């Protein structure tokens, strides 16, 4: 059974007083251990799809199921099983909280020293950093704290929204390695939003291409990249600057 499934999902926002369809006809099922990259241009609807998966936005049409149950019945369970890593750690980490307290947030209690040591060690950070504030860390360390927070409650699915696009190229590789290794060790499902196909290829086995609010392609990474069926996918592949 799928972990999370969107069936015929449609999300409508209001823009300048008028309804605006952000995404429609979205059918997407994430199974345990799936590693899915969602790609598309700015405004294509990829973040809206991720927010639907997280239960942060309710579809105006269609439904979201968590282990086969509608979200109205499974919302608490979904919250325990899914966590999110944002693009910009500067914005997602509370500057007034110490790292230890930030990481503890999803547990709704202070994490024990053992828990902190374990999760900080997993993302390659010195456990002593738990006493620091976010501004005392580098950009890469901050994003690893955000990943540690995403892992501490033992989720089954990690949703990462452009997790490395705010980082420098060398730090980016380091953070991606941490993410790849932790997803593999913990057998997590991963949904990663990105506009960078190179990163999707590094971490994901499946890619979903979103264009103008619709899923226009969904398949195995290697197959889609070799044989794209949608013009936007082809454009993305052509625009990727690899050495």
């Amino acid at each position: 059974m799928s972990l999370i499934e969107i069936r015929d999902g449609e999300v409508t926002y209001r823009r300048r007083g008028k309804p605006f369809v952000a995404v429609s006809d979205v059918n997407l099922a994430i199974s345990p251990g799936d590693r899915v990259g969602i790609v598309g241009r700015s405004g294509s609807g990829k973040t809206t799809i991720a927010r639907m998966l997280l239960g942060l936005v309710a579809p105006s049409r269609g439904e979201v199921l968590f282990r086969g149950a509608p979200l109205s019945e499974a919302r608490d369970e979904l919250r325990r099983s899914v966590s999110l890593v944002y693009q910009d750690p500067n914005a997602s980490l509370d500057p007034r909280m110490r790292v230890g307290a930030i990481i503890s947030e999803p547990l709704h209690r202070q994490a024990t020293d053992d828990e902190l040591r374990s999760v900080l060690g997993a993302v390659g950070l010195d456990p002593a950093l738990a006493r620091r504030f976010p501004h005392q860390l580098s950009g890469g360390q901050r994003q690893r704290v955000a990943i540690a927070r995403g892992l501490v409650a033992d989720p089954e699915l990690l949703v990462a929204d452009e997790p490395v696009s705010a980082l420098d190229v060398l730090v980016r590789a380091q953070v991606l390695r941490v993410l790849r290794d932790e997803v593999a060790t913990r057998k997590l499902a991963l949904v990663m939003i990105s506009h960078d196909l190179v990163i999707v290829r590094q971490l994901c086995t499946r890619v979903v291409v979103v264009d103008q609010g619709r899923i226009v392609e969904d398949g195995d990474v290697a197959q889609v990249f070799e044989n794209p069926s949608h013009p936007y996918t082809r454009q993305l592949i052509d625009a990727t600057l690899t050495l």
Partner: protein
Amino acid sequence: MKLVVDELSVRFGDTLAVDKVSFAVGETERLGIIGASGSGKSVTSLAIAGLLSETARVSGSIKFDGQELVGLRERDYRRLRGNRFSMIFQEPMTALDPTMRVGLQIAEAIALHDRRTGKRLTVEEELQRVGITDPGRVADSFPHQLSGGQRQRAMIAMAIVNKPDLVICDEPTTALDMVVQRNILHVLDDVLTDRAALFISHDLGVVREVCPRVIVMQEGHIVEEGPIDAVIAAPAHDYTARLVAAARGEL
């Protein structure tokens, strides 16, 4: 040579951000400067543009068309900046005035340095030149009404409107998505023809699209320089090798 940088050092308090860096850029040459955060690449470009904060201590020499820029008065710098040389930054949203229509900002850039006031026609022509298909609408828009790619095109139009000899591009495509980045690189490739350019980036793949030659900076020093294809094929420095691996998507 259009630009000759000789033993340039920049110090902020006790921190030496740039340490005796020397390089030169030919009349129509494009030079890439590559490095990770904190390598000193942006500080080098800001020193050339005269945009460092007052707390920075600059020594060495920067000669632009033979004129010494180190120690130049701000009044004299203002005559050069936006006119003889110009800058394109990573985030057009912070470089453009959010309260002013885009067309007016371009016209102002012309009028600041030229008696012929920025005519509507000139502005629309400049916007068209950077690949904007509906220049009338874009000229009448405020920056927030445009997409990221359109804003960066408008920024490029502003930077080249006075036909500068040197354009300094600091991570001009980093904030954009891949397809838009590719399009902007094409525009840059076109507008930088017959000018000197400095192109700063942490992404070798991006630099290779625009620059035949590159210098690699780490912790304020130049650790490697040469033709970009040679540097990518056989990096001499371990740090360059790591940048190449990262750009190849190796983890």
